[in-house]
């Protein structure tokens, strides 16, 4: 959070419950199920919100990948940060050349490998996992914002 939003940002977090209606909407828009709770990290400066981060797990080849999607307040993706990568292969999704492709995208972007996101050649499973995950979380962020929860 500090890397993306600056060392002066104040960090806080809240646990938001996702009601079944919202969960169904996220599922319909992203094609993926969501948890019934989500932890949203918020970065603020002088009392004003400057960004958010949502932590999530997506299934990799055999093990889950834990990553954070960071958003500007308008719902644009600021960055992706891989927090825990457990596989032996495919760790290249942590490279800037892959992660930076997500910048500026939002819930209405396709966020699809072979469309607006280039695969890491040879790391297809991990690349797909992160792209799918980012789509889900971007849609979730959009829904949370519309519902006035952010």
């Amino acid at each position, binding site marked *: 959070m500090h890397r993306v939003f600056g060392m002066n940002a104040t960090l806080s977090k809240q646990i938001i419950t996702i009601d079944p209606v919202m969960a169904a909407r996220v599922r319909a828009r992203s094609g993926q199920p969501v948890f019934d709770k989500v*932890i949203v990290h918020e970065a603020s400066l002088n009392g004003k919100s400057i960004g958010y981060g949502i932590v999530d797990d997506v299934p990799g*080849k*055999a*093990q889950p990948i834990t990553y954070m999607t960071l958003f500007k307040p308008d719902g644009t993706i600021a960055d992706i940060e891989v927090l825990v990568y457990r596989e*032996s292969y495919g760790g290249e999704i*942590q490279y800037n050349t892959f992660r930076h492709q997500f910048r500026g995208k939002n819930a209405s972007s396709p966020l699809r490998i072979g*469309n607006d996101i280039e695969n*890491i050649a040879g790391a297809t499973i991990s690349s797909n996992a992160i792209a799918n995950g980012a789509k889900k979380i971007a849609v979730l962020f959009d829904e949370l914002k519309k519902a006035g929860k952010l």
Partner: protein
Amino acid sequence: MLFQLRQRLRLNLNNVFPLVLFLTGTLPAFAQSTEDTTAPAATTPLQTFINQTHIGGYGEITYKDPNYGDVPRLNIPRMVTFIEHDFSAQWEFKSELELENVKLERGAGGEIEYEQAFLDYHANPHIGLRAGLQLIPIGIINQTHEPTTYYSVERPLFDQSVIATEWEEIGAQFYGEIAQGLEYQVMLSEGLKGEGLSMTTIDGAKQSGSAGDITSDAIGGSDASHPAVSGRLDYIPVAGLRLGASAYYQPVAFDTLPAGASGAFLMAMLDARFEHGPLRLSGEGGFFTVSNDAVNYYESNPNYQPIPQKAVGGWVEAAYNVMPFFSSAHSELLPFVLYESFTFTGHPAASFILFGENSLSIAHNSVTAGLAFKPLDNIIFKADYRMTKVDGEADYKQFSLGGGFNF
């Protein structure tokens, strides 16, 4: 059926894992530690075990109809189960257990084997150590061989003969990232038993953790007296491009050689994968060579089969995802063409009897054209037609259908 299986697994992975985290109260704990990337702390031994152990697998089913004598065959060439366990953020165990060709009965039929089984110590992004049975880091297909990662029903012929995938040996490997986009693997392992090389494949020379077949003895384990070193560099300059260079060197690859004779075996490969939007290009090529001393000795000794002096060649493949023309669905439809060319060359004095003619070398030229459909990222259906000319004469054709998955 595969689709339903995948749906069930998706439910399991997406719902059960977070559910377990919530039930155990570890997700809030996890959240507190997100800035330092440490793994979630669990509260009971069972919960810890569930969180740290992962299963997965892959498999494929094929229908192959060749024009060269055999009947059409349906097969499940491979069913593989992964079991992985994290002891800590640094230490993990990984295994892949494989059953080939459906069943093994009274010693006949398929084969059951550990394809990989190793302990992995991941010290930091720059250095890790894997010890155990693991894949030789050479070429593309050997390390990335799940059926959903290539489009032809069968693996390229090159990867069934020159590099006989999967090629795994017991050994120790250092791996890591030199700089962002530049990765290395260096491995010291048991080596090939060169006596098992043939004019069509290196397959018979692999030990794969057990020398049983080759030595005909009842002693478990491989022959570690002739170790080999192998290594690979991966360069990823941009997201869609990966370039690889890999090599395998074994100073002595033969048990029996005249005094003072060299028995070295060297293999070197270059490969590239490029993806941009719907376009997928890949290629792999290189050679292996055996010392002349060994080739001469095995040619002149009637107790042994002749061995190749070298093999050279490779393949290129182009595929294009045409699904966006038809639908916006999250699936892929990929017409592809795979071209392969490789030649095994024997001793200059050798006379291999090939299709009734003497031959110094055996050249394969093959074109495979087909269609792959991926309804989901981890499921693939394939159809292709392969035309292979051997030495420019014998003509082999095969129509194949296949389906595969991984999870």
